[in-house]
């Protein structure tokens, strides 16, 4: 089954030094390996994690660190999240794996009502910053209703959480290491189609990519294209095609952090280009694009040449055989970009 995007590997190296060719699954494995090695309080757990997890991100880690540090839990997401909050409350670093982001909802109460509000409701006495919840998200070509969702917007509505989405091996390793050191609980959503999509030259040493900061991946002046996760690759291809066919140069931003998000980078870019397109796989209504669009219009109003465009999944559940018609693919983004330019 062919995928709906072309992978654009990262060219920029976050740090100097040795690199190893890794796909995103290996980069995530590497980040957890570093944490388990350097932080003796760190534990990694979830459904089927002992044998490496269904996407193999934890492969070999139980053999290396023992079954008291890398282990299976019973099949219960609310348990996994609550157990992780408890570990973090007691000072440990908890790396909790939810098997699919589609199955994170039984843990919603623990994450939204407990993890997010832990520091606030205790007057700053307690926190569960040591918790990072990892979950594979997004379209894979054949996942249907319950193996495709992108729930970032649900968590973006929970002050106290940090929500992060990597776009490939290099960003995954750096962002995950940041989440694991972060003083606030993090939800780390891994676009599962990228696990084995392609490899990058990933620095072998430990490094962190700051949370709350977006990255400008390509500079341009005609329009600002904003995405995260897999969608970044769609937008990079859109920018490339727009250059070739429309002769325009677009700026492409990977938001990376959904909550809190990098208003400064986004608004500076839109003030420069005067046009903004946001694209995400999750449905349109109350998708995170709505938040970006509202902020951009209030912060950049006098610079805008056209209303902010949103290209997203439709307001329907994620459908199995209709996936090619559901996704905000290259052609839908290009067509929206064209309208944006000729507004």
């Amino acid at each position, binding site marked *: 089954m062919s995928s709906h995007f072309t992978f654009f590997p990262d060219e920029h190296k976050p740090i100097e030094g040795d690199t190893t060719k890794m796909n995103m699954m290996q980069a995530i494995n590497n980040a957890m390996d570093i944490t388990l090695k350097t932080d003796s309080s760190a534990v990694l757990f979830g459904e089927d994690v002992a*044998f490496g997890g269904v996407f193999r991100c934890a492969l070999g880690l139980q053999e290396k660190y023992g079954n008291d540090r890398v282990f299976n839990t019973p099949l*219960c*997401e609310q348990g996994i999240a609550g157990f992780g909050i408890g570990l973090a409350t007691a000072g440990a670093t908890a790396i909790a794996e939810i098997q699919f982001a589609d199955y994170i909802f039984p843990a919603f109460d623990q994450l939204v009502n407990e993890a997010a509000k832990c520091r606030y409701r205790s007057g700053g006495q307690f926190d569960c910053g040591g918790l990072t919840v990892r979950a594979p998200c997004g379209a894979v070509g054949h996942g249907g*209703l*319950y193996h495709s969702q992108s729930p970032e917007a649900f968590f973006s509505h929970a002050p106290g959480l940090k929500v992060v989405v990597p776009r490939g091996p290099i960003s995954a390793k750096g962002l995950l290491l940041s989440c694991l050191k972060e003083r606030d609980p993090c939800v780390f959503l891994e676009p599962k189609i990228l696990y084995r999509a392609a490899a990058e030259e990933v620095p072998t040493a430990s490094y962190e990519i700051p949370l709350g900061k977006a990255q400008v991946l390509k500079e341009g002046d005609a329009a600002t294209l904003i995405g995260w996760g897999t969608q970044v690759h769609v937008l990079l291809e859109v920018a490339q095609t727009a250059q070739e066919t429309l002769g325009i140069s677009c700026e492409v931003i990977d938001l990376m952090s959904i909550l809190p998000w990098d208003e400064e980078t986004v608004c500076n870019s839109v003030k420069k280009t005067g046009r903004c397109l946001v694209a995400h796989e999750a449905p349109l209504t109350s998708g995170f694009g709505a938040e970006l669009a509202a902020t951009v219009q209030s912060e950049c109003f006098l610079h805008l040449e056209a209303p902010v465009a949103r290209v997203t999944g*439709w307001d329907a559940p994620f459908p199995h*055989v*209709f996936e090619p018609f559901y996704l905000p693919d290259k052609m839908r983004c290009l067509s929206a970009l064209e309208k944006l330019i000729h507004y």
Partner: protein
Amino acid sequence: MALRSGVSFLRFHALRSSSRLLSTHTRPEVQQNGKKIAEFPGAKAPYVTEMKILNETSYEPIPIYRVLDNNGDVLINSEEPHLDKEVLLNMYRSMVQLNQMDKILYESQRQGRISFYMTNYGEEGMHLGSAAALTPQDLVFAQYREVGVLLYRGMTMTELVNQCYGNHEDPGKGRHMPVHYGSKQHNIVTISSPLATQMPQAVGAAYAFKRTPNNDRCVICYFGEGAASEGDAFAAFNFAATLECPVILFCRNNGYAISTPSSEQYRGDGIAARGPSMGIHTIRVDGTDTLAVYNAVTKAREMALQNKPVLIEAMSYRVGHHSTSDDSTAYRSLEEIQKWTTDENPVQKFRLYLERKGLWNEEAENTLVKDSRNFIVRTMQEAEKKKKPHWKEMFEDVYYDKPFQLQKQMQEMEEHLKKYGEHYPLDSFQKE
């Protein structure tokens, strides 16, 4: 206003506690074997002066009910259910069809013809034993590995294969991943992926049945021993018991939840032990013994219709990989799989039973296997040729009436496809 209601609350509270005080005063002391029985609202039990600590060895393991031995012989004659020849043959035919369907569809996923598949090997006895004990009006909530139940209730191979292909004859209209079957006509609620969600739902449906005059329907809810760890499972047990619902909670304990062995899933005496502790009638049965399962579900159904919920834990072994996304040799040995495939094979046991009764023989077996295989291959080839539903089906059934936003979005896609249709696989989908 605030003050007034505060006062009346106080007064009400005082009244209530004084009446409670009164009633305990007037009640005589309860004694049992000379021991005083506590009357806490939460427990009525004797007081003792020696501290008692209970653990999983405080009780005998819950025994596993069997009718057949490994050679298909009935162990105790009085336990043999007297099923019609046709019923027995139907049960067996469904098992063989199921095995053939699993073999061929599993292979077709390997060849990239369907996107996903899950086999049912090792669990056929639970499917057919339970299905035969129900009526077509009973409502089924399934997990996903219960296809034998669906076949026995009359879902056709064609419907099932169409679902896996997501073509325009798929009753689910291509929206769900393969193996997420459902049929209103056969009282099978469409399967959903999030585990254990069907369990409290099944209990709610049972409560609705209970409230219908002269109710003669029950609900059966299938779930894995892994799914039983979800909070929803506890909710289902507790609601079923407290609200006294006509429901059979049928656990398929096949030893694994993907790679997680049951030894890491729970401690204590399995899922069955949870039943009595929550006030639910409970039966543990050998899931590889079709007749034992039949008897257990028959009895359970009888009790359920008296609004006594029943938990059945059927013990078995997941012989196949979890799904086409799994390679189970990464976490269990071939010997282990082999042992369960040969020694406790439910299809084999049931076949031997039929042969002993003179209802089945080698020739019948060969014909059935060959016919089933041919039929499924043909069905698959036909399913493959059928177009997927019109892309507009993506926007249907989200709501009963399509809201304005969705109408707008559908229109947007329509205009987009007019212009850029060549970039989409429109040829594989039905046209207007």
